[in-house]
């Protein structure tokens, strides 16, 4: 019982951040419909914020697609982990794949018994999906009503969300150095290459640091 309650609790608190995404999408000159389709179809916070961020700073659709997809690749890794627990086939695998994200995977692997792992995965996945989508819509409609989004501080929401996501993950010296190198690299080349390129090219830093 407490697994279900905890899973729904995660869904509510994570889903609420959908308000931030919806408003950031509008601030980045996306439409309410585009914000909602991103949350329904892409359903991966970092990829969604990045896609909007790349295009609203002038990047090409290709740069946005590549950045969003690279960031979404993490969910593929979670998929292999969850498949060994869920053992789904057919349409259940399709649904499970769509709700495979940080939170559903994290809640599932935190459980000890297989039954509870299943419960945690499905409840967390559906709860986050439900609240994230509703909150995206509310945030987008709200931001639309506001008008000048910079006057309400909406232009710092996206980078601050990324800082909040990044900071707890920088657990080793190598990870901290890679983050600093990527940040510095992007700002050093932003004026001399097309928009989107400063972000995408940092994948080379990941390969270089991770190779050894």
């Amino acid at each position: 019982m407490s697994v279900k309650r905890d899973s729904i609790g995660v869904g509510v608190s994570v889903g609420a951040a959908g308000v931030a995404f919806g408003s950031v999408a509008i601030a980045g000159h996306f439409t309410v419909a585009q914000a909602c389709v991103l949350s329904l179809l892409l359903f991966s916070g970092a990829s969604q914020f990045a896609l909007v961020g790349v295009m609203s700073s002038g990047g090409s659709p290709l740069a946005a697609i590549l950045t969003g997809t690279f960031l979404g690749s993490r969910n593929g890794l979670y998929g292999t982990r969850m498949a060994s627990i869920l053992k789904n086939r057919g349409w259940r695998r399709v649904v499970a794949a769509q709700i495979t994200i940080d939170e559903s995977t994290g809640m599932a692997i935190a459980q000890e018994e297989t039954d509870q792992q299943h419960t945690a995965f499905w409840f967390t996945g559906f709860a986050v999906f439900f609240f994230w989508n509703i909150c995206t819509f509310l945030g987008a409609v709200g931001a639309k009503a506001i008008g000048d989004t910079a006057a309400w501080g909406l232009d710092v929401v996206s980078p601050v969300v990324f800082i909040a996501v990044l900071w707890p993950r920088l657990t080793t010296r190598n990870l901290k150095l890679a983050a600093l190198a990527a940040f510095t690299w992007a700002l050093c080349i932003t004026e001399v290459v097309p928009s989107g390129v400063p972000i995408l090219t940092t994948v080379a830093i990941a390969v270089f640091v991770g190779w050894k």
Partner: protein
Amino acid sequence: MSSKWIAVLVTGVLCFILKYVGHSIPAKWLERPRISRITTLIPIVLLSALVGIQAFTTQTKFTVDHRLSGIIIGAGSVIAKLPFPVTIILAMAASAITYRLKI
């Protein structure tokens, strides 16, 4: 169809395919140490670069403006482990105040 719709739909479909493929291939393919180190690093470098671009550029030009106060307050709140909604609201307030004061 606008370029934004193309990016929205193509990224959505590609990311779903990645998730589905993940559910369909043997786990051991992706558990090699080098692969897992690189896949851990990829989101970290991309997001770090995005923080820089979104906080300190305007149309690809390096810019320091009202956003700096929001970034400093936001980063400070994250390091102080304040709750996520509080962090976001403080950062927004700092940036909005600086913007309205035309500093």
